[in-house]
């Protein structure tokens, strides 16, 4: 039996992804463990690893295919020695089957905050194994599938008129062929108001950001607390550490991560998630750090940050940031986390309020470190200040708890030696 390779679910919330490119060609021999393809998920690019040996007999979903439904057939592997003829027998191996996608309601995105795993239990393997469990099956008659394949009609784009919404021949025949319709529509639009706008197709990552943040802002009762931190001591300490023999170059943000983590350890009520049944309090302190990438925002996680040395945190954040920008993060590196830090200080932003990253309950927005005129002991003085704003989910973190947390954070950041203990 030919082995069907299906679109893997790289993250629990993933319902569709893009097939960035194949690393093997049709006809190429594959060993178990070989990298087959790169899958662009909602947040990163992950590699698809062959679970069994054989020949990559047919690539059903080509390079740079967007919106490939999880569970859709993407390629067919023939076991060693299996005749190519057995491909023909496998009716599912037709390209039509590959077009499977967003239609099946069964695969509706499990995107509710509570559906994400606890940070303590990162479960998705970095490289999904093949074949993965099929899901997102499109109900379509064999004839409809075949005609759709011939005409290049995406079954996923159709509404079935048959029993239970099954796509039948008439539905396919009534559908405009392939991309003809959108192209025509675009042409028509451009003739009316040429160059009025350009449409950049949404990547799966873009759509995931849109969905998660819209959900968050709409469903989480946010409130905001702002505090000013004096960081002269911190800046001095940074310089001293740098000047040490074997000195390290630590960023303000490295200290912020450590301080935020220690404050979470002290006030575990903030390191928690809302679920309908209960408030889920996390047993480890995992701090996510927002990283801007060319394709969008991603939040890799520094796990057990409260236990890590600053140099460790610094190295980890650097590595995560580099790989995030290259789109090479593994799923467990950005899934979960109990708290997020977003720092826009490098742009000179003084202060801002961030949107909570679900299923978490709080996010700390860190502004620029800058010298400001302050009143110190009754006299005007100059101090290096950093303004931080905590956005918190009032369902989980009441105002007093949020304030207490921010005060604890301020105390740590203003007494940076405590971060070295």
């Amino acid at each position: 039996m030919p082995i069907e390779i299906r679109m893997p679910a790289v993250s629990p919330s993933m319902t569709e992804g893009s097939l960035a490119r194949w690393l093997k060609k049709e006809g190429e021999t594959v060993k178990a463990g070989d990298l087959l393809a790169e899958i662009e998920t909602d947040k990163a690019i992950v590699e698809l690893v062959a679970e069994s040996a054989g020949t990559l007999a047919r690539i059903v979903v080509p390079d740079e295919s967007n919106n490939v439904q999880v569970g859709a057939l993407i390629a067919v592997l023939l076991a060693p020695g299996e005749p190519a003829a057995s491909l023909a027998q496998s009716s599912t191996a037709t390209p039509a089957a590959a077009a499977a996608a967003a239609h099946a309601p069964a695969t509706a995105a499990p995107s509710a905050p509570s559906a994400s795993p606890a940070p303590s239990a990162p479960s998705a393997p970095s490289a999904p194994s093949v074949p993965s469990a099929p899901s997102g099956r499109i109900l379509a008659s064999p004839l409809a599938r075949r005609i759709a394949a011939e005409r290049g009609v995406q079954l996923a784009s159709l509404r079935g008129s048959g029993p239970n919404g099954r796509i039948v021949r008439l539905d396919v025949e009534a559908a405009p062929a392939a991309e003809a319709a959108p192209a025509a529509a675009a042409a028509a639009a451009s003739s009316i108001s040429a160059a009025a706008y350009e449409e950049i197709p949404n990547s799966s990552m873009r759509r995931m950001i849109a969905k998660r943040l819209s959900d968050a802002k709409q469903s989480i009762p946010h409130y905001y607390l702002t505090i000013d931190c004096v960081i002269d001591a911190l800046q001095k300490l940074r310089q001293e550490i740098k000047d040490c023999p074997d000195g390290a170059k630590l960023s303000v943000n490295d200290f912020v991560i450590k301080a935020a983590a220690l404050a979470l350890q002290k006030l575990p009520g903030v390191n928690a998630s809302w679920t309908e049944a209960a408030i889920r309090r996390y047993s480890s302190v995992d701090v996510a750090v927002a990283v801007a990438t060319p394709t969008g925002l991603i939040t890799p996680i520094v796990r057990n940050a409260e236990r890590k040395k600053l140099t460790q945190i610094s190295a980890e954040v650097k590595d995560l940031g580099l790989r995030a920008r290259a789109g090479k993060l593994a799923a467990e590196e950005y899934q979960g986390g109990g708290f997020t830090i977003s720092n826009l200080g490098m742009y000179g932003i003084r202060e801002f309020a961030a949107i909570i990253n679900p299923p978490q309950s709080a996010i700390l927005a860190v502004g620029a470190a800058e010298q400001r005129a302050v009143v110190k002991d009754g006299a005007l003085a100059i101090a290096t200040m950093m303004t931080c704003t905590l956005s918190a989910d009032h369902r989980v973190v009441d105002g007093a708890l949020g304030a207490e947390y921010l005060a604890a954070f301020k105390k740590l950041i203003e007494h940076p030696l405590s971060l070295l203990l």
Partner: protein
Amino acid sequence: MTEKSFDIVVIGAGPGGYVAAIRAAQLGLKTAVVEREHLGGICLNWGCIPTKALLKSAEVLRQAQHAADYGIEVAQVSFNLAQVVKRSRAISAQLQAGVKHLLKKNKVEVFTGSGKLAGAGKVAVSQDGKTITLTARHIILAAGARARIMPGLEPDGQRVWSYKEAMVPEAMPKSLLVVGSGAIGIEFASFYRTLGAEVTVVEVLERILPVEDAEISALARKSFEKQGIKVLTAATVKSLKRGTENVTAAIESAGKESQLTVDRVIVAVGISANTEKLGLEGTKVRIERGHVVVNQWLETDEPGVYAIGDLTAPPWLAHKASHEAVICVEKIAGQADVHPLDIMKIPGCTYSHPQIASIGLSEEKARAGGRELKVGRFPFQANGKAIALGEAEGLIKTIFDAKTGELIGAHMIGAEVTELIQGYAIAKTLETTEAELMNTVFPHPTLSEMMHESVLDAYGRVIHF
């Protein structure tokens, strides 16, 4: 004058009407059905069922006559026509009682009498000069059809029969002329020929069973002629001279007229819909070519009035009526997932010897559509079960769209093909391609293996031929 009110009133209790009533009751609608003559309609009382009973008698006779072929010695074979007819009538009576029971079980109220529309949402039921009025939000017309009458060929019930008299003969005609070679004409021709009558079939078109695939028609003709039936195609019965004991028909064929004198004539030249006494005058219900015009949900142009079965467009088959009944009622009841009927997926059967069954397009019609075809054939003579049954005559033909693998049509002639055709009907409904049919395991030894082999043959992969 009494008045009773219902959600649905169905006029006619044939295979369309009584099925509509039962389905409506199942869906919780308060339902009544109006029937003027007998529950079950023509199908059950004077059509499908009693003719199958007659044809079974003919088959038993044929088997007995050929018992020696099977090593069975039967001393003397003869038949008792009265008993043959009696059995047929008893079966109809039994099933009529069954329909009565089903309607009662489903709490469908049955009104005996002639129903007609009597203003918006009203049905008048008349019997023996008395009239009651039923009110209903939805009225389904299922009044069926009757034998079509052609000038000069009017049945007289004595020597010129319609299907009805042909079903209850008091004596065997020595010779018989059947006018019309559709399913009804052919079934009677087959029955009477098997019982020993000299049978002539006259068909106005170029071939018998004109709705069937031409290849199947030709095979049928060959088989009937071998059995001794005379077949005249492209021929017209111009007139019938009715004598006291016989009838002389003037038959025109290829510009020449000939005379044929027979004991009896059966006229089976189609049907006429029973549209006349339904009170359609003054309503928006439209009639075209003698049949009520409905949309895909069986709605007429008059709001709240529906029509199903033989009242509407062809094919005029009981199972079409029943299926329309269900669609119509489910749509009225607001059921989800109701789908219009596709006539390409309605099988048709003729229960002569040999039997004929088909679904979808004939080869010529498929070709006329301009599609490239793959046509498969498998003969009964190459099927083990057929040979063992002593029924090695027949053919199963399948037609596929070469490009898509769509099963466009299937055509069969031979023993028990009427029981086989449903397999292709399922295939068409599921929209399988040749691949799924090829991948299906057909049991051995069965006649159904020929269905498989025919598909294989269409793609050059036939095994046993």
